């Protein structure tokens, strides 16, 4: 039985093992096992799990890899994430992956799917084009067909035909995963000092490259630990960090925010793991239908989904109020159209609701945090002063 610091250290290692050794080891243990890499943000990982596969989140190379070839594939005005991903595809990091999925979030990720086809990585490389129509008979049918295509791709590789029982089992495991994660966030809401933002980050990110069963065990252990009081409350303000759902901020940036006097009580770093709100029914004859409906009806707001009728600014403000946040930090990757084009409206809604906010832009390999620390510190001080 590992201690909590040991678990958290292990998570930190897993989060930034850009060779995905643990996932590859898992695959090597049985010929039927397959690895499916996916980019941010959301993938219904249940379908990969049910097919005997492991869906591995590829969140970029961050500041952990020297980009040698990747820069020759991207102009300077394109965000950093895809150049790290192509670097990994060109060296051995993504060897042994059977397929790749590129969820629809922007044209960089979309075109990256074609680059993987050209450089011939994986037995399949597909853009996963989520419906923007939310009627079950229209978008729902389309989404189901998309999922079926992936199930067929996987079946061609390992011969596994997914049954409703298998899918129900996978759904219940991911339901547990989502529940445990939300419990951790709800403890952090009231007692943020019990688990730092960086540890929380590692804990969630580690789950993208190991089997969900193992991740659930880790989350359970940490959750049990968090139930008891630990750590010392500081005179920090409570913030939500929004806008870093795809290219990830460097750990130094997350640390800087906390060290400058802000508790991060919520964030969208690992949005994909928290995408579906609530459980998906795992006791039906048609579990695929449940996965589809969960997406159509219970998706968290995001820059990837057109939000007519349910504006994301309003939804962010609701979360901020419910979680009793003192302020919001908009923290988006440079050149990230989806996040940056949402920002003015989100800020306007915050202003109207009287929620203070600041914003940063970053690259995943930013190395200097002095300015960010100062800005976040001033933000925290001003809130403390005027509260």
């Amino acid at each position, binding site marked *: 039985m590992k201690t909590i610091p040991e678990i958290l250290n292990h998570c930190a290692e897993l989060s930034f093992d850009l060779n995905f050794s643990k996932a590859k080891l898992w695959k090597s243990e049985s010929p039927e096992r397959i690895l499916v890499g996916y980019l941010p943000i959301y993938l219904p990982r249940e379908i990969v799990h049910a097919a005997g596969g492991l869906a591995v989140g590829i969140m970029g190379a961050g500041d952990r890899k020297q980009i040698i070839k990747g820069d020759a*594939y*991207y102009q300077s005005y394109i965000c950093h994430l*895809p150049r790290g991903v192509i670097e990994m595809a060109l060296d051995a990091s993504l060897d042994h992956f059977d397929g790749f999925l590129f969820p629809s979030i922007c044209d960089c990720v979309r*075109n990256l799917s074609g680059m993987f086809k050209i450089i011939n990585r994986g037995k399949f490389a597909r853009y996963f084009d989520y419906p923007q*129509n939310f009627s079950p008979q229209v*978008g729902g*049918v389309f989404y189901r067909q998309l999922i079926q295509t992936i199930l067929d791709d996987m079946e061609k590789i390992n011969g596994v035909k997914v049954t409703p029982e298998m899918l129900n089992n996978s759904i219940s495991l991911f339901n547990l995963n989502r529940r445990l994660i939300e419990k951790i966030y709800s403890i952090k809401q009231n007692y943020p000092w019990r688990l730092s933002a960086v540890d929380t980050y590692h804990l969630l990110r580690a789950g993208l490259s190991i089997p969900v069963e193992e991740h659930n065990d880790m989350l359970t252990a940490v959750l049990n630990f968090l139930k008891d009081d630990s750590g010392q409350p500081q005179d920090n303000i409570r913030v939500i960090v929004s806008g870093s759902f795809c290219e990830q901020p460097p750990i130094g940036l997350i640390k800087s925010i906390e060290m400058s006097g802000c508790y991060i009580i919520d964030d969208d770093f690992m949005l994909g793991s928290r995408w579906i709100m609530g459980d998906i029914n795992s006791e039906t004859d048609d579990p695929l239908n449940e996965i589809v409906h969960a997406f159509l009806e219970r998706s968290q707001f995001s820059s990837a989904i057109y939000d*007519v009728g349910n504006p994301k600014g309003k939804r962010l403000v609701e979360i901020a109020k419910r979680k009793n946040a003192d302020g919001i930090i908009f923290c988006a990757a440079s050149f990230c159209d989806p996040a940056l*084009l949402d920002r003015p409206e989100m800020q306007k809604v915050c202003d109207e609701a009287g929620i203070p906010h600041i914003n940063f832009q970053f690259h995943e390999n930013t190395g200097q945090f002095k300015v960010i620390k100062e800005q976040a510190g001033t933000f925290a001080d001003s809130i403390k002063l005027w509260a």
Partner: protein
Amino acid sequence: MKIEKAIKEKSMILQKEMLAKQFKELSLARESGKKVVYTFVPGNLTELILSFDMLPVYPEINALQSGMRKKSAAYIKDAEKIGHSEDVCTYVKCDIGMMLNGNIGPTGEKLPAPDLLLLSYTGCFTFLKWFENLERLYPGVEVAMLHTPYQEDGKITADQIDYMVKQLREEVIPKMEKVSGKKFDYSRLSQMMINSEKSEDLLVKILESAKHKPSPIDAYFAGVYYIGPMFTAFRGTEEAVNYYNELYLEIQERIKLGLGPVTPEGEIKEEKFRLVVEGPPNWTNFREFWKIFYDAGAVIVASSYTKVGGVFDLGFRHNFREPLESLAKYCMGCYTNMNLPQRVDLLSKYVKEYQADGFLINSIKSCNSFSAGQLLIMREIEQKCGVPVGFIESDLVDPRYFSYANIKNRLESYFQMLEQRKIILGQETEA
């Protein structure tokens, strides 16, 4: 020469008149009671909009016009003042800035606010963000979404067509009926497609005339004018058919006389290089940009930008027998909705079929849809076609990203490279 000049002017005059009439109608929309639909160029539903007697407005066209009229820099700054980042697509910022400054269109007349935002986001994710922003700026405006699936597997599938047709039936058409107060007229839409098909046939012939040596047209700089009526408010109309007929006759005449393309600097007397260009042009310095090519005798014989509103040379035509299905296929077939391997194949085909001497990319800072992956495209074309490749960078409407000296230097070195290759190839043939 005189005859040729007169003929040329006729198609230009026609287009000018068409545009003037369109913007006049728009400025009078409130008085005439006509409803206004804002929508995007790639994969547009012009025939459907016109079949409801509504008037389309294309924000990208307004942005590019603002760029050409040197107004975009100020508009972009105004959008940045309200919180838009320097990093994002400048078309969006230019449009928002124009709106903040009274929404004055290219003819100096005020554009009406939209009655419907028709978000047919073909080939570009940023469109979605653009209209989310516009929706906030026009509170309460009706929005219709048409999700166009990407050709991720290099083809259009039956499932995708089915999805799009259902969206047209259940989302787009009911919204149009609501906004216009008219019932959907299937046969009117179908009839318009007969005209669409005629214009499309003609446009293909016009663009393919560049296969002649010398090419009678420039398929990029002049090409952007040729695609104007087809990619915007006129496809499906008699006017468009007339325009394309006229233009086609003029070009036939040029071929007969062995003439090269007409440019703002005059006619290109000697076609030194034939190029295929990938990526949109720059609008803020359009004429200067074109002149660099003119000075070098470089003629663009094929371009991907003239395919953003349909790759008709691959065979697609609107079909009056299945109007909704053909709208679906049309939307999905546009250039930026093709996956990267398809784009590479198309561009290689152009290099070969148009007997190009080189392949050039104008990479646009604003546009991830075009730009992400272009460096790989360039390498692939170089390998497949064995022609010299060139790469320059600029922006659509943000003059801060158009460095004349830099672009000129790069192009001149590129043209030198082409020149040397020609000499070597010439020597090899002689030997």
